[in-house]
């Protein structure tokens, strides 16, 4: 089984985010970068499949030099190869263009499965896996919560639907599959794995040196801002039963803690 996992480096979730003066990007100074959360689950799913079926896991990341960190982390956890698409002079591609860049490198590699996280914690397009499937002409499933290889040509996936429903479906391979956080328990890089990491291949390719057509971004960030915090007190009125019903309604549907 040849598996590729697309991994993005994003600001760590507990970073304090400050918006730059131009209001189009965030201040990177003092931000810790980490692997996008759902990508960690995608990697774990790939490693579990490899351990079960045999094969090879390649990880790929598009970004500046710093994103080699998430690739090295993936190699330390057990991925076999890494590809870094260095976008230093090709920054801030929109998601379609980013997918085209990746396809340019992946199209001849004949992966059986391309895993990606459901969405990135920074921009949150939630489209990459879907676009990859379209551009590479593979089958596709999003929001995947479980996988099972049926045979060399078929994978069964469990998808999350709305309202707590799940659906199992079978896909032909090759497939591009986006993974929802929580389906497995991502491993920690073992210290031995970290020692082995430096002997594994990490190929760096400059995006500017790829033969690209049609990859200029068509969408641009216009303005970034932090939402205004507002405090609102809601009084639920009526009989005790009505108040309880109203409260449960709010806790379930608005605050989503029930």
């Amino acid at each position, binding site marked *: 089984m040849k598996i590729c996992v697309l991994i993005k480096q994003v600001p760590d979730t507990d970073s304090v985010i400050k918006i730059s003066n131009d209001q189009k990007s965030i201040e990177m100074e003092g931000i810790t970068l980490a692997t996008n959360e759902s990508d960690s689950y995608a990697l774990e799913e790939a490693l579990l499949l490899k351990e079960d079926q045999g094969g090879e896991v390649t990880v790929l990341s598009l970004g500046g030099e*710093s994103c080699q960190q998430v690739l090295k*982390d993936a190699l*330390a956890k057990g991925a076999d190869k890494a590809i870094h698409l260095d976008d230093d002079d090709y920054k801030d591609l929109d998601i379609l263009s980013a997918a085209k860049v990746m396809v340019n490198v992946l199209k001849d590699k004949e992966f059986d499965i391309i895993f990606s996280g459901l969405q990135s914690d920074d921009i949150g397009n939630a489209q990459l896996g879907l676009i990859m499937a379209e551009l590479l002409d593979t089958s596709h499933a999003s929001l995947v919560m479980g996988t099972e290889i049926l045979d060399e040509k078929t994978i069964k996936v469990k998808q999350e639907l709305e309202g707590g429903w799940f659906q199992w479906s079978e896909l032909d391979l090759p497939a591009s599959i986006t993974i929802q956080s929580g389906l497995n328990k991502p491993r*920690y*890089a073992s*210290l031995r794995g*970290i020692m082995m*990491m*430096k002997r594994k291949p990490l190929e760096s390719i400059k995006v500017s040196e790829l033969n690209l057509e049609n990859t200029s971004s068509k969408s641009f960030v216009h303005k970034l801002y932090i939402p205004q915090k507002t405090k609102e007190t809601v009084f639920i009125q009526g009989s005790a039963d009505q108040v309880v019903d109203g409260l449960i309604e709010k806790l379930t549907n608005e605050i989503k803690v029930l």
Partner: protein
Amino acid sequence: MKLKGLDYLNISEHFSDEEILVQHSVRDYVDSELQPIIEEHFKNGTFPAEKIKEMANLGLLGINLPNKYGCAGLSHTAYGLACQELERCDSGIRSFVSVQGSLVMYPIFAFGSDEQKENWLPRLASGDTIGCFGLTEPDYGSNPGGMITRAVKTKNGYTLNGSKMWITNGSVADVAIVWAKTEDEVIHGFIVETDRDGFDAPEMKNKWSLRASVTAELILENVEIPEENMLPGVSGLKGPLSCLTQARYGIGWGTIGAAMAMYETALKYANERIQFGKSISSFQMTQEKLVWILSEITKGQLLAMQAGRNKDRNVLRHQQISMLKRNNTWVARETARLAREILGANGISGEYPIMRHMMNIESVYTYEGTHDMHTLVLGDDITGIPAYR
């Protein structure tokens, strides 16, 4: 790559990618798996034995020993960073790893026969076997050279008699490295399986420090061991002292981790706690405390980092390790008091980790050579006068 957490002086650039990945991995593991359970264990006075296997799988036991024994084979600097992250959680956890790696695996690695290494190191690295280190005796603490535990030669080996005190992991250990004198008054190390007749290890209860670490007495009453259980590679006090040098090196990093945990807690608290209409972090006296802690931690990081570099080049002198252990443990001890002050009444509450670290550091201040003993080691080094005798 960047270290996670406090790095005021941007020292990340001096660490290799591997070293930084080690810090990240151990930190992530500690935050998700150990932090949530540590308070409970500390309160109950129990060691989280259920985590031994996970820690072993991560590679925390014998980090800087070679691959061929099932160890990670990482640099001493990486080992130091791992100790920092473990002690950021609790000194008891770091103590467990120090004892297993530096006080049990290290002497077998450095002074053991090939058979001893092959027999013991993989089991100790995998956590299937737990070890302890018996040097201190009821009447000989800072002066271990005076020990009275004896190893008398028999036809096929030795008979051990004596007692050891304050032995970390003692009552959970499968094997003890026991230091004893032979008839010629020379100290030797012995590998003693704890299920041998005449060996007993009652747990020492009623500790108010290192409560998440097990401490025991070792009682040896005519314990017979075969000849091949003696460590052949060393004799004299330098045997146990060289093990302590390894462990102290890790403590020098670890205590900075404890200080970091307290600093982060205090800074966050100071920013959130409102008195007189503003956060207490806006008062100069609070800022002064936070800045003192930050500066001392930063200096401690530099000290640890350079000690690590020296150790990786095999040029670290034991007196430099005394400086590292002495200084950084003191930093953690002072930090505990200042952080406790910043948290006010909440500082004494179990809701925050300050008192737990404060109590732990009192052990760390004393074990592996007391603060004062390290002062005298350094005093001897610069004046040539050993004031401890």
